[in-house]
């Protein structure tokens, strides 16, 4: 066996990583306090010294690639630089060492921050009210669909059960609709990559509950006919939802609420500079138009009589979606991000994100197919169809990019582009970085012709080469066991 030994393999009886203080109150036998029958026989946890712990996890960090390691053009994920000052701010005891049930008189600062954040997000989205409870985008989607469901019930339309979404949508959209007891109706995108209005028209009926769109969509295209779409959706009695994953394209330039969307979620960990944490924690606040406000999860942060407080009194609220008030620590980072940039800064975030994406697209468009035109918003989807004919797939190109020092783009998504390479450079990358990445992609396109094997066998510089994922699924070794 090679690779880094696990903490279980370096464990040795008697080692300890930390001392705890002696008990300063009289002790009684544990058996007497808890009852022998309630006690466990053994606790099979590892035993390590502190230096073992620090070396182990420091080593693991060195075989992990983050935004601070290098370019991370992962489409749909907005892997921008995370301002490090925001980490320091969120870690301040006055934010991180607060108990969620402590008296409101001790919590005026954090409640003010949360209240302001609700106001900021409503302003940025062109909406009227916000809940900060959802812990991630997918939970925001679920929350919003539940708000829609409550609305339909309240207006006597509780039978509506169909959620319509385009074939380019994120996987969370249909999964969320199913979680909310709805049936999913998928419509094919038009030849221009946008919603096909006639397909939408035939899909809409008096059973439609909602239409879920991402704007700009996952092809990096703005849904130019969104006002017409909103009119059609509303005429059919359905509601229009905006998956806000791609807000980085339109900050300060366009607001979904102004185009007729009824609700949307934000991914604070994408758009507003909070780090992704290796897969979370994120934060997925939901912003809504006024008619949905009464249904928001309880509590909301309110301001009255000169003080901030948590308001629990919504009789029409759908209820809670989180044990407390959402991922406050992430909200603090994004709040700091927003006020440090201000309105002009946020506007230039999107302008530069769109500029960088278009520049990169222009640089590689002769070597790779770009099926939906030579202009994009904050990201674009190229195709390795040409290279596939030479025996090199999108996966191979992604892995070969690692050899050139970049993180691969999102691949095989959206599903409607074959051999998709979904590239989102973000605004925080310099022209040098974009050029180096473009050069790498052009070089790989050449290699696909001249030396396809070097691409197919990539990566060559990582601690492990391509892993046998089929064996992982087959063997289901999901935990370490002695003797492994």
């Amino acid at each position, binding site marked *: 066996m090679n*690779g880094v030994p*696990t903490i279980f393999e370096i464990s040795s009886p008697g080692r*300890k*990583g*930390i001392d*705890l203080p002696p*008990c300063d109150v009289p002790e009684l036998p544990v058996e007497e306090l808890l009852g022998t029958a309630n006690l466990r026989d053994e*606790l099979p946890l590892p035993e390590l010294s*502190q230096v073992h712990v620090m070396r182990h*996890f420091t080593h*693991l*960090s060195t075989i*992990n*690639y983050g*935004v601070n*390691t290098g370019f991370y053009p992962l489409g749909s994920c907005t892997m921008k630089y995370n301002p490090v000052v925001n980490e320091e*701010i969120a870690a*301040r005891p006055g934010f991180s*060492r607060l*108990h*969620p*049930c*402590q008296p409101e*008189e*001790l*919590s005026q600062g*954090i409640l003010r921050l949360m209240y302001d954040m609700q106001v900021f997000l409503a302003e940025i989205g062109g909406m009227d009210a916000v809940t900060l409870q959802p812990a*991630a985008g997918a*939970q925001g*989607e*679920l929350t919003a*669909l*539940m708000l829609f469901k409550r609305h339909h019930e309240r207006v006597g339309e509780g039978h509506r059960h169909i959620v319509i979404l385009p074939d380019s949508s994120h996987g*969370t959209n249909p999964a969320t609709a199913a979680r*909310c*007891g709805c049936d999913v109706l998928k419509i094919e995108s038009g030849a221009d990559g946008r919603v096909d209005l006639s397909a939408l028209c035939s899909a809409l009926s008096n059973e439609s509950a909602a239409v879920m769109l991402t704007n*700009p969509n996952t092809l990096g295209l703005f849904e130019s006919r969104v*006002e017409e779409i909103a009119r059609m959706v509303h005429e059919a009695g359905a509601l229009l939802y905006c998956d806000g994953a791609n807000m980085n394209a339109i900050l*300060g330039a366009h607001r979904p609420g102004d185009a007729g969307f009824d609700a949307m979620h934000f991914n604070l960990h994408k758009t507003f500079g909070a780090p*992704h944490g*290796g*897969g*979370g*924690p994120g934060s997925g606040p939901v912003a809504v138009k006024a008619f949905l406000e009464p249904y928001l999860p309880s509590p909301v942060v309110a301001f009255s009589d000169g003080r901030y407080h948590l308001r629990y009194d919504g009789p029409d609220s*759908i209820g809670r*979606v*989180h044990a*407390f008030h959402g991922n*406050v620590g992430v909200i603090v980072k994004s709040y700091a991000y927003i006020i*440090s940039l201000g309105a*002009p800064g946020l506007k230039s975030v999107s302008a530069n994100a769109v500029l960088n994406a278009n520049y990169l697209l222009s640089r590689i468009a002769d070597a790779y197919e770009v099926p939906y035109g030579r202009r994009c918003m904050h990201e674009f989807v190229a195709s390795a169809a040409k290279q596939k004919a030479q025996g090199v797939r999108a996966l191979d190109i992604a*892995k070969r990019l*690692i050899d050139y020092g970049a*993180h*691969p783009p999102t691949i095989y998504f959206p599903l409607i582009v074959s051999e998709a390479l979904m590239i989102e450079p973000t605004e925080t990358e310099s022209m040098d970085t974009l050029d180096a990445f473009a050069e790498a992609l052009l070089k790989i396109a050449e290699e696909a012709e001249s030396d396809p094997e070097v691409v197919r066998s990539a990566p060559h510089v990582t601690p*492990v080469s391509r*892993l046998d994922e089929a064996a*992982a699924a087959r063997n*289901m070794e999901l*935990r370490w066991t002695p003797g492994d």
Partner: protein
Amino acid sequence: MLELIGISDISELFDQVPPSLLLPRLLDLPGPLSELELRTYAAELSDSNGNLDDYTCFLGAGAYDHFIPATVPAITGRSEFYTSYTPYQPEVSQGNLQAIFEFQTLVCQLTGMDVANASMYDGASALAEAALMATGVTGRGEWVVSGCVHPAYRETMRTYAWGAGRSLIEVSRASGLTDLDDLSRKVTENTACVVIQSPNFFGAIEDLAEAERVARKNGALFVVSCNPISLGLLKPPGAYNADICVAEGQPLGMPTGFGGPLLGIFACKKDLVRQMPGRVVGATTDAEGRRGFALTLQTREQHIRREKATSNICTNEALNALAATVYLATLGKNGLRRVAELCLQKAHYAAQTIVELAGYELPFSAPFFNEFVVKCPKPVSEINSRLLRKKIIGGLDLERHYPDLAGHMLLCVTEKRTSEEIHSLVEELAS
């Protein structure tokens, strides 16, 4: 750059957006602030809160003030970890993947379950997901939930149940424990799962063996929500034949953070793994036969299965799972047991000392871990206001969640509370 793109002005980049939909003004937001100004402002705002460094906390109720070893923030603060994305590209994500694999193993060791996922949002949504999973496994729509489960967890479950068209049936309480007779009455052939929390919301240890028997007899899944620190001493849910075990992982090395981000722990029996929500890491080998780790069983997940997925969860709480992994690695077997013992001893000492005061009673007699209910001679709000003047945050007023428990307070004592702090609390309660 503009020249290469073929435009002359940056505003042309937005020509896909109809002019009527372009915002004709700047957003109405404060700022911009330089880093120096931002830090000054953030210091003012955060210092205006009363935090647990300045106040002695006897509040628990789902968020706990435990000691956090310095190893934890030192590792979670490494930006190779915190600025990475979900490890979809395993060759450049072995650090994160191995840490998650270790987390899954630690969760199994702690809970006595077969398999664990890479985390959920929090204990509340993990419990709701467990119930949805039970419906998926059994094809049944009724969730039978103890009234001693954390009220916010039950509220979250009720929201999810309503959204998915399922029903939540609540079991009544008897002396701070689940009423097992009522449980027996309510579990039927329509029951998808029996949901018990132990130690329960009142801190008391439930009769899991009997609850399991009731669930099993009716073909329902047995779902247990637990406190991971208590498992340093208590028999784990796996030993009671639980089908699914969830927990709030925040006590394992995370600050209370005004209630988030938290850590949803989710574990189940091996034969249910294909119905489990969330990401899972598995061990495998690379082309040269070296051990490596990768996300696996992804055909359960939303990005592959879309509306047929076992859950809609995508982003989870990976960095907090890393915190828990470092926490448990640092404490190890003996350290976690010792933390649990300290919590237990100090909580019992506090309870015994309080009950000697005139007018204070312990209304429930079941064994408890580190939280307990006290019946007070005065309104809880009055007592807590008095405590606050001495920089003590008192227990949770139970009246809002349980009107029949007006005048009752839920106190929590962790290993961080000293004998001196306990005596200060008792002194103020007496006055």
